[in-house]
């Protein structure tokens, strides 16, 4: 019987070998992959046990980790509650950190970033507990609060930029949510809060300023005007353009009317500047026809449409569709058809015009500091995204936009003693609902320090430009005033 016993012992040895191999695979070969799985509670707890970096706005923490006496060791709290909810996101044991800076800058906040490698090594040697990096944001507290108050109970978004650098001065999306209960260590509370948020029909978790696409409506006429000026279709703000009551679109039975069914000027003609002041649909529709879809699209792309931007949160790319036929080009030229944009993108349009045609890459993080306040990454050098239009075109556009505020539909954006440039918009999106109200602007027009885009969902009045001017423009004005200290 010894021969089969020996053979059976070989079988047993094979069984053991299998177990040795499988254990080695798990604990050595695949260990990193397994550790990195998002659902892995051990990794999450490891991150909790390390003090996560704070997020600072204007010297005050809007997200910070405070030590607590439980297995997680640190509780993530958001002292400002709702105000920065879409900027920070939340950091929850029950849910994770799917949104905002908590998601996008997790490696810095948690201390796992490669840029913190040297610090981790010295921490290991000195026995100091490794902590995550602190983020100083570019946000201006007053502008943020003004934007928040301006939106009030409306759904919508406000973004303010420093046109010279691309620094984001305000970023508000309504409705907001309180990140504190979701980040609670009481898992029942956290799950309940999360379920309420996830099933919210108004999608409070969504950062509308960068992740929601809206039809830009008449604010897009600025882009059309830029294209027409750059392409030489018109020479300056006083160029005469067609302005009939109704623009006949080729290839179709549909026409493009002005909202008030009136021509924009005597003899169905008007000037470019007047067309923008009164937001003349037929004038810009006919410019769209003359330019064609591709040139419109190219101009929009120069302002950043289609670019994947990370601020560091990923910004949903705005878009003008390709292969537009003539009537679609005319519709697109007034910001309808399939043109879709984020509020941040429209703020970049305003900022680009304000900054002599140079669009700066937007960013939210001013500097990154280690736990003991050493600067790890200082304020980034402003990065030019593109030269969207020539300085001359930018001057003409500024002149026209100032006129919109001084003489046209954007009167409510006026600030005493400050020259404000702006453009209203009313964007149809759903026939049964009121249109979205838009306003883009910058100020002071002769020395721009702030550019703003405001969208108020369903805030307009069908068939009128007053939505943008009445609802959105005052919000933009308050934000600009906050930045300018007026």
């Amino acid at each position: 019987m010894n021969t089969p016993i020996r053979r059976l012992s070989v079988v047993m040895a094979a069984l053991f070998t299998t177990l040795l191999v499988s254990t080695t695979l798990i604990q050595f070969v695949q260990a990193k992959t397994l550790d990195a799985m998002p659902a892995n509670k051990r990794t999450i707890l490891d991150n909790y046990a390390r003090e996560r970096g704070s997020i600072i706005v204007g010297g005050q923490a809007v997200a910070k980790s405070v030590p607590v006496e439980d297995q997680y060791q640190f509780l993530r709290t958001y002292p400002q509650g709702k105000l920065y909810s879409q900027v920070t996101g939340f950091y929850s044991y029950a849910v994770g950190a799917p949104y905002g800076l908590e998601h996008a800058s997790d490696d810095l906040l948690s201390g796992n970033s490669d840029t913190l490698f040297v610090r981790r090594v010295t921490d290991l040697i000195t026995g100091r507990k490794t902590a995550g990096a602190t983020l100083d944001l570019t946000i201006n507290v007053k502008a943020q609060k003004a934007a928040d108050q301006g939106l009030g109970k409306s759904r919508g978004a406000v973004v303010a930029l420093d046109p010279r650098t691309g620094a984001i001065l305000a970023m508000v999306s309504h409705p907001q949510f309180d990140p504190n209960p979701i980040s609670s260590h009481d898992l029942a509370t956290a799950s309940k809060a999360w379920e309420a948020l996830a099933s919210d029909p108004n999608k409070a978790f969504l950062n509308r300023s960068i992740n929601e696409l809206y039809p830009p409506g008449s604010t897009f006429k600025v882009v059309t005007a830029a294209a027409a000026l750059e392409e030489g279709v018109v020479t300056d703000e006083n160029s005469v353009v067609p302005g009939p009551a109704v623009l006949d679109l080729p290839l179709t039975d549909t026409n493009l009317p002005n909202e008030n069914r009136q021509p924009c000027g005597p003899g169905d003609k008007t000037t470019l500047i007047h067309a923008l002041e009164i937001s003349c649909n037929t004038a810009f529709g006919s410019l769209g026809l003359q330019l064609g879809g591709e040139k419109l699209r190219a101009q929009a792309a120069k302002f950043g449409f289609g670019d994947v931007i990370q601020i560091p949160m990923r910004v949903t790319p705005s878009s003008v569709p390709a292969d537009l036929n003539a009537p679609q080009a005319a519709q697109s030229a007034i910001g309808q058809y399939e043109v879709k944009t984020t509020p941040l993108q429209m703020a970049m349009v305003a900022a680009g015009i304000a900054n002599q045609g140079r669009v700066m890459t937007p960013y939210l993080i001013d500097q990154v500091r280690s736990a003991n306040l050493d600067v790890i990454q200082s304020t980034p050098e402003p990065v030019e995204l593109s030269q969207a239009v020539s300085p001359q075109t930018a001057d003409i556009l500024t002149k026209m936009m100032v006129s919109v505020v001084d003489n046209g539909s954007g009167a409510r954006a006026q600030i005493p003693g400050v020259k404000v440039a702006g453009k209203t918009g009313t964007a149809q999106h759903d026939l049964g609902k009121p249109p979205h109200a838009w306003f883009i602007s910058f100020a002071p027009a002769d020395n721009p320090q702030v550019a703003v885009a405001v969208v108020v969902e369903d805030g307009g009045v069908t068939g009128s430009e007053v939505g943008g001017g009445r609802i959105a423009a005052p919000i933009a004005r308050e934000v600009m005033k906050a930045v300018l200290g007026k």
Partner: protein
Amino acid sequence: MTTTVEPLNPPTRRGLELALLLGAIAIVLIAWITVDLNRNGTVPANIVPVAGGLFVLALAVHVVLRWRAAYADPLLLPVTTALNGLGLVMIHRLDLAKGQLGTDGDAYRQIVWTAIAVAMSVAVIILLRDHRLLRRFTYVSMAVGFILLLLPLVPGIGLSVNGSQIWIKLGPLSFQPGEFAKIALAIFFAGYLVQTRDVLSLAGRKVLGFTFPRGRDLGPILVAWVLALLILVFEKDLGSALLFFGLFVAMLYVATERVSWIAIGMLLFSVAVVFALSAFTHFQKRVDLWLDPFSAANLERSNQLANGLWGMAAGGLTGTGLGAGRPWLTSFAESDFIYPSLAEELGLYGSIAILLLYLLFCERGVRTALGVRDGFGKLLAVGLTFSVAFQLFIVIGGVTRVIPLTGLTTPFMSLGGSALLANWIIMSLLLRISDQARRPLPDAPVGIVDDPAEAEPTQVVRLS
């Protein structure tokens, strides 16, 4: 069989055993202290009674061996002590995490069970003077084995845990009768096969180079198969079914030297598994979890396997250190998942060390089977050894995703009295057989007279 020439007075190696035993206890105590140092920063207050208790228990077996089985294998007891002790350390560690200390802790219960198991082990060594006595109980063992196996199906005392019905509950006590059935069946298979091996190995016809048994000789394997099928269908436990059927086929092969039995066995078992898979969602779910433990839907259903794997990964090469990991995140961390728990805190080095301890245990079992002179002893030793190795493969293979997860215990380490008791009895039987194997031949037969029919020199004469 080749006859080994042994020295006239081979050493008993009891001194080696004592030294290794002290080493094993030292390792366990260091591990125990490490847990408390990492958790609380203090040396545990109960270290003196724990150390004393372990020492007394292990030494009791050692002394009894010196007295009643002086030639018993010197490695089995130290290895068992180390494994039992490491299991205890992890159970104690999980108690600390749960805040259960003193007599309401699992570790306390496990220590009591260890004491009972050691007492049982001592009793076996003292009362069972010669393993061949067990042959008399071949058919009693069969009855006991079958009854134990099917006991969880009796309404009123059967207990369903995690979808598998392999527990019974008698008053305050619950245990897994399958653990004891393993021993009874190994005795029965050994006794039965040693009698029938000639028939089972000789008759048959040759197909494709394999000699296949005659139809009427298929009876025993079919009975075993039906039994396995009953466990599979009614107790819903793939692990137990696989263990018993595997044990039978392995012993059948050793008894008959016929590979065709293994082929037939695997074929029959595959049929059973395919049937179970198609008929019961319970098994489909297990297979599903096994194939993709990390999908969101499967994590929702059971994150146990995934948590165990994450725990092992968190341990990495060197482990988090005893008391410094988070093994409690895995459910059943102290029983079915005690291996991942230890792997998390001891790292890959620790897991390999644990596997090597088991390998050593099995190697000593095989050596015992090779060394013992009677066929019954050989079959029993190899059967018991294989049952430990195979059970280990089923449970650790389950938690490391080699095979679908089933509900067996990790021998010597898992929390649970019945498993501990049964495995210590297995170890005692191996000790008893190894004493026979290593003892120099007496000048004249004493006590039991061997049945000449089963003496090893009687070679099977092959007809084909």
